[in-house]
C-alpha cells in the first residue's frame, strides 16, 4: 500500500519537474531572443507556439500542421509495420535455425551498417518519387533494428527453461511456440522501441529530400522561404510526435510484458 502511494507521489513529482524545467527553458529562450543578439538568428518560443496553433487552422502549403503530422505518421506506420513484421520473422528464424543464419546473416551484416537515408537516391530510381520510395526507406530503418533484436532474443533463451519444458513433455514445436517465442518478446520490444525512433527520424529526412507534405517538408519549406519560425514549428512537431511514439511503445510494452521486470 505505502509502496504504491510513494510511487504515485514520485510520478507526480516527475511530471511537475518536467513542466517546470520546460517552462524555465522557454523563459530563458524568450528572454535571450528579446534582450540579446540571439534574436538576430532565432525566433522566440511565443512566436513559434503562436504559429503552431495558427497552422492548426491556416494551412502551411496545402495542409494544416496536424495533417502534415498525419502524413508523416502514415508513412512511418506503413514502413514500420512491414519492416517490423519481416524483421521479427527473419530474426527469429535466423536465431532458431542454424542454416537460416548461415544463409541470411552475411547479407544482413552488410546491409545493416548502411544508414537508411543513404538509400534515398536509389529508392527514388526504383520506386519513383511517390509514397512507395518513402515506405521502402522507413522499412529499412525498422527492419534492421528489429531483426538484430529478435535474433538476440532467441539466442538469449535460457537453456534451462528449454530443458524444463522438454522434461514436462513438450516436443520441438511446442518448445518453439511456448518457450522461445514468449521469452524473446522483451528483446523484440526493445527492438521496436529503437525502430520506431529511427523510423521517425528517417521519415523526416526522406520528406526533406522529396515530398510535398509532411513535417520534414514543413521544415525544408521553411528554409526555402527563409522562415525560421516555420522551421521551428516543424521541429517542435517532430519532437512532440517522436516523444509520443516512444511513450506509446513503452505503454504497450508494459501492458503486454507485465511478467517481465522491464515491463514493471
Amino acid at each position, binding site marked *: 500500500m505505502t509502496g504504491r502511494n510513494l510511487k504515485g507521489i514520485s510520478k507526480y513529482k516527475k511530471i511537475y519537474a518536467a513542466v517546470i524545467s520546460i517552462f524555465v527553458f522557454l523563459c530563458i529562450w524568450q528572454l535571450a531572443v528579446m534582450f540579446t543578439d540571439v534574436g538576430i538568428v532565432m525566433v522566440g518560443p511565443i512566436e513559434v507556439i503562436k504559429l503552431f496553433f495558427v497552422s492548426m487552422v491556416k494551412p502551411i502549403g496545402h495542409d494544416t500542421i496536424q495533417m502534415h503530422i498525419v502524413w508523416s505518421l502514415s508513412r512511418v506506420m506503413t514502413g514500420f509495420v512491414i519492416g517490423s513484421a519481416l524483421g521479427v520473422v527473419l530474426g527469429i528464424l535466423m536465431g532458431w535455425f542454424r542454416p537460416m543464419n548461415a544463409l541470411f546473416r552475411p547479407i544482413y551484416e552488410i546491409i545493416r551498417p548502411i544508414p537508411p537515408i543513404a538509400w534515398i537516391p536509389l529508392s527514388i530510381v526504383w520506386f519513383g518519387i511517390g509514397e512507395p520510395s518513402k515506405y521502402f526507406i522507413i522499412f529499412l530503418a525498422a527492419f534492421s533494428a528489429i531483426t538484430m533484436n529478435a535474433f538476440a532474443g532467441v539466442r538469449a533463451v*535460457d537453456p*534451462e*527453461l528449454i*530443458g*524444463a*519444458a*522438454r*522434461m*514436462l*513433455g*513438450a*516436443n520441438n514445436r*511446442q518448445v518453439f511456440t*511456448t*518457450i522461445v517465442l*514468449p*521469452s524473446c*518478446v522483451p528483446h523484440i520490444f526493445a527492438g521496436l522501441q529503437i525502430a520506431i525512433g529511427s523510423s521517425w527520424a528517417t521519415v523526416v529526412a526522406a520528406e526533406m529530400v522529396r515530398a510535398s507534405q509532411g513535417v520534414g517538408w514543413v521544415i525544408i519549406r521553411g528554409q526555402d522561404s527563409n522562415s525560421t519560425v516555420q522551421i521551428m514549428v516543424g521541429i517542435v512537431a517532430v519532437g512532440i510526435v517522436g516523444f509520443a511514439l516512444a511513450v506509446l511503445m513503452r505503454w504497450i510494452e508494459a501492458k503486454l*510484458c*507485465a*511478467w*517481465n*521486470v522491464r515491463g*514493471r
Partner: protein
Amino acid sequence: MSKEMIICDNVSKTFETSRGDVNVIGNVSLTVNENELLVLFGPGQCGKSTLLNCMSGLERVTTGSVTINGRTIDSPGPDRGVVYQRTALFPWLTVMGNVEYGPKVRGMSKSERREKAQYYINLVGLEGFENSYPNQLSGGMQQRVGIARAYCNEPDVLFMDEPFGHLDAQTRYLMQEDLIKIWEKEKRTVVFVTNNIEEAVYLADRIAVLTNCPTTVKTEYEINLPRPRDYIDPEFLRLREEISSVVDKAL
C-alpha cells in the same frame, strides 16, 4: 520387498570441452526403491547436478546406463519431474500456467488439467495465488510452484536439485517440513540433491554420500528416524556428526 525404481549401472560422465575432457562422474552404481526418498549428499562442485541430470535424462551418460521402471533413459520425458535450484519457472506464465504446463503440452483437456493443477496448487499451499506471476512471489513460494509443476505431470520419479539452496534459513526449515508433508500425502520416488547435512538427515530415507570430482558413491546411510524429525534429537545430531566426518572437504 520393495521394487527397484531407478537403477544406475556403472554410470560415468565426461564432458568434452575446448580445454580437453572433464571427467565429472567416475563410476556410480546406485538403486532407488519405489517411493523412497534418496538424498545425494556431497561437497560443492562434486558433480551432484550432473549425476542428477544423467538420471533425469537431461544429460546423456558417457558409459553405463540409467533405467527407470525398466526403461532406459536417454532423453527428457514427462514420466520424470524435476525441481530446479534456480526454479526454472516460465516467467511469462502465471502460477496456474506453470503448473498446468505439463498436462497442457501433453494434450489434456482444459477442464481436466485445471482441476489437476488446482489440486497440486492447493497441496503446496498456494491457493489464492493462481493468477500471480513468478516475479511477484517470494523465493519459497516460487519453489512451491516448481514442486507443484513437477507433481502435476504425475511422474513416477521426482528429481530435486538443491531446491532450497537459495532460501533463507527460516524459510528453508519450513519448506523441508512441508516437502515431507506433501511427499507423505503423495508418495513418489524422490532423488534429492543437497550439500547441507542437516537437510539431508531431516529428509532422507537413505543418504548416498558422494566424493569429490570425478564423483563416486563413497558410502550409504539408512536413516530410520521416525518422522516428523527433530533437528536437535540426540540420534539426529549423532548421525549428522558421523556423516559430516565422512564427507570430503569441498575443493
